[in-house]
């Protein structure tokens, strides 16, 4: 079996495993990284979102073999960043967290969006978050949180 080498939360990883295993299972079961959540297992909810080379991907749809040579950041490592602090302050201020099951994915999606587009307008935010389902909030508070983060974190992205 070939080894899969990638960077996971800033650490170099060498993994001998079936390359078709879902990245989500590898993260949750092999590395106890339970921040990414399984809401649907089929790429619809975004709850399992992680950053792959800085962009959000649904780890439930990604065979671990395909991250070979790339960088994976989960919410566990992202939560140590200044960007995370700005985003969570905004999520808290706007009331964007209810049950919280979608929140790590929403934060990762927001980071992915702001990294590409630091000053998104409302529609761009809605589109940027449209791969992430939230059943609790109705989204408005999340959209406002991203707007607030973009403003308060100016220069960070």
């Amino acid at each position, binding site marked *: 079996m070939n080894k899969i080498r990638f960077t996971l939360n800033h650490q170099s990883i060498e993994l001998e495993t079936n390359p078709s295993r879902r990245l989500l299972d590898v993260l949750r079961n092999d590395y106890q990284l339970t921040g990414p959540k399984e809401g649907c297992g089929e790429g*619809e909810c975004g709850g399992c979102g992680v950053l792959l080379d800085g962009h959000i991907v649904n780890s439930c749809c990604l065979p671990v073999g395909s991250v070979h040579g790339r960088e994976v950041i989960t919410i566990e490592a992202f939560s140590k960043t200044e960007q995370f602090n700005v985003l969570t302050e905004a999520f808290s201020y706007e009331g964007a967290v*209810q049950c919280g099951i979608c929140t790590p994915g929403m934060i990762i999606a927001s980071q992915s969006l702001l990294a590409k587009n630091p000053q998104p307008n409302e529609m761009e935010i809605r589109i940027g978050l449209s791969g*992430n389902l939230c059943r609790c909030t109705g989204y408005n508070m999340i959209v406002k949180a991203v707007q607030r983060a973009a403003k308060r974190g100016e220069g960070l992205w």
Partner: protein
Amino acid sequence: MKDISTSIPKVDGLEKASGAAKYVSDIHFEGMLYAKTVRSPISHGKITKIHYPKLPSGYTIIDAKDIPGKNYVHMIFEDWKIFAEETVEYIGEPIALIVGEDKTVIEEIAMAIDMEFEELPAVFDDQLSVIDYHYVKGDPHQAFKTATQVIEKSYDTGYQEQAYIEPQGFVGYLENDTKVTVIGSIQCPYYVKNALKVALDCDDHDVRVIQAAVGGAFGGKEEFPSLIACQLAIAIKKVKKPVKLVYEREEDMLVTTKRHPSKTTMKAAINQAGEITAIQAHIGIDGGAYIGLSGVVLSRALINISGAYAIPALDVSGDVYKTHTVPNGAFRGFGAPQAIFAMEMFMHHVAKTLNKDPYSYRMNYLAKQGDLTSTSGTFRDPILMTEMIDKVKQASEYDRKVECYTKETSFKGIGMSYFLHGCGFTGSGESDHIKAKVKLRKDAQDQVHILIAAVDMGQGAKTTMMKLVSHTLKIPLNQVTFAAPDTDFVTDSGPTVASRTMMIVGGLLNEAALELKATWQAKQEQVVIKDYQQPDYIEWDQETFTGDAYPAYSWGVNIVEVSVHPITYQVNIEGIWSVYDVGKAIDERIVLGQADGGIAQGVAYGYLEVMQHQSGHLKQKNMTDYIIPTAVDMAPSENYLIDNPYALGPYGAKGVGELSLVGGAPAVAMAIEMAINREVRSIPMTPEKIMELMNDE
């Protein structure tokens, strides 16, 4: 001191945002096994043979024969089986659990099970009534006899799936060979505990239920989790190891309870002056294979039939029909969304039939303080609907838009719904069945612990309860602790349902806090317990449905604006405005969050969310087939709260959670009706249904 409504950051926000909060699937125990459910492939039949393959070592099958106690999920009726025994009643009914270490091996065992059935006729329509209720207000008979005109219409609503983002599940373990502990995604720790006691036939101290972080519930985790917990606990007793049972999305969608599809017929007696003198209504709901909570859902639907209006005379009846489909159950609103949809549309359609302006016509019938409720109780508290309607009408430029959109088939529309929600259990439910008890404990370091069974499933109960107690005791928030309920420590304050948590449980907690404050002794351990007492004024006759069905009502107005694509008939939500009277918000931002999320579910119920079955097979089984709104589907909403403190609620608070859902569907349906200039009597109003209406001409 700040007004209690002033928002504070949610106490569990960071824990959830950083991914640190532990939901069931994040909890792991050493040596833990996994479980999978074996299910019925047919809608109705006799089980003639079940042959299990020879099991590899470490793998176990658990079925009805392993149940130490009774084979039903303790709820109201003794009908809902833990594992099917002689017959199966719906596709997906659980027959057995396979437990073991490796999920792939479990799958192989599942495939190798040989089951045979003798199929029986399956029923999917309204021929088997298992519960029927009837009540009367005033003299509807006389009104219909003297009516100059009778207007009759029928309405129907479809399934709605809770679609919480975290599927259902439990993990559990055995202690000292006897005590089973289950940790679950639940709304009602004591419902689960009581069900376990019956299933395991064991003592109170031999079962323990702990709430994990709950990733959304919306009623879906009210009664259904008791079923999984019973199965899992039986398995744990047999294998004597920790076991985890978490549903995947598809299983969750196919086998868990949903909102009851309904059919309602409404008949109005109209007098010479064009006034409604009586309404006769019948609501039929599809209960699915087992009754579960369907009777209670039906009663809330029936009581809600006159919505926010005071109609002089009513003749109301309803049935729960048994069908060979997955049992339906609790979903935010609990029967009210179906009834409010029918009533709002009917009032609108009556006005139109009489060539009157629907909006002022409906306004005339709005209940006022002192009026009789549908069940001949009294609306005792002030009702501020006129003021509330003005507020959202102005914010949405309602009048201008109505004028503009009704001119021709503009494919634009705006709709407005009026509604109320009775807070807490119906009738004497709180005092006869629930008997809430709350406990506050102050330890020797003066830290105050909230010991209640109320669950934070996202609605913010953890934050608002802590805030309430700290506010009343005038101590900092961090001097108050509220851990997730664990039945070994918390009293039974009742289930987290029926918009009762703040009004009833919070009310008791506030009393406890006041007593603690009055008797406070620094550095001394103190305990205060409070029991629910029904307000003296409540009189309720469950047999005849007469009296005060609820101690208090929350009120709301929703306005929804849509555009409909003239070719594809795709509905686009252009704007949402809402206003609520929840008495007093214990935390404004949290209540507004409930408003925003509730209305999204309510509006989507009206136009977007489709679930159907074909001969008992659900056609939508995952998030790709069952569409819930994304951020792009929802329009920005403007939500307002007005204060109208309720004397018996803590700081004046009434119920919040369900209210915000019930008005969404009629508002969006009326908007679509205006946009396409056709009568809308069915939800969800999908493009296919719009096309049918457009072609009907």
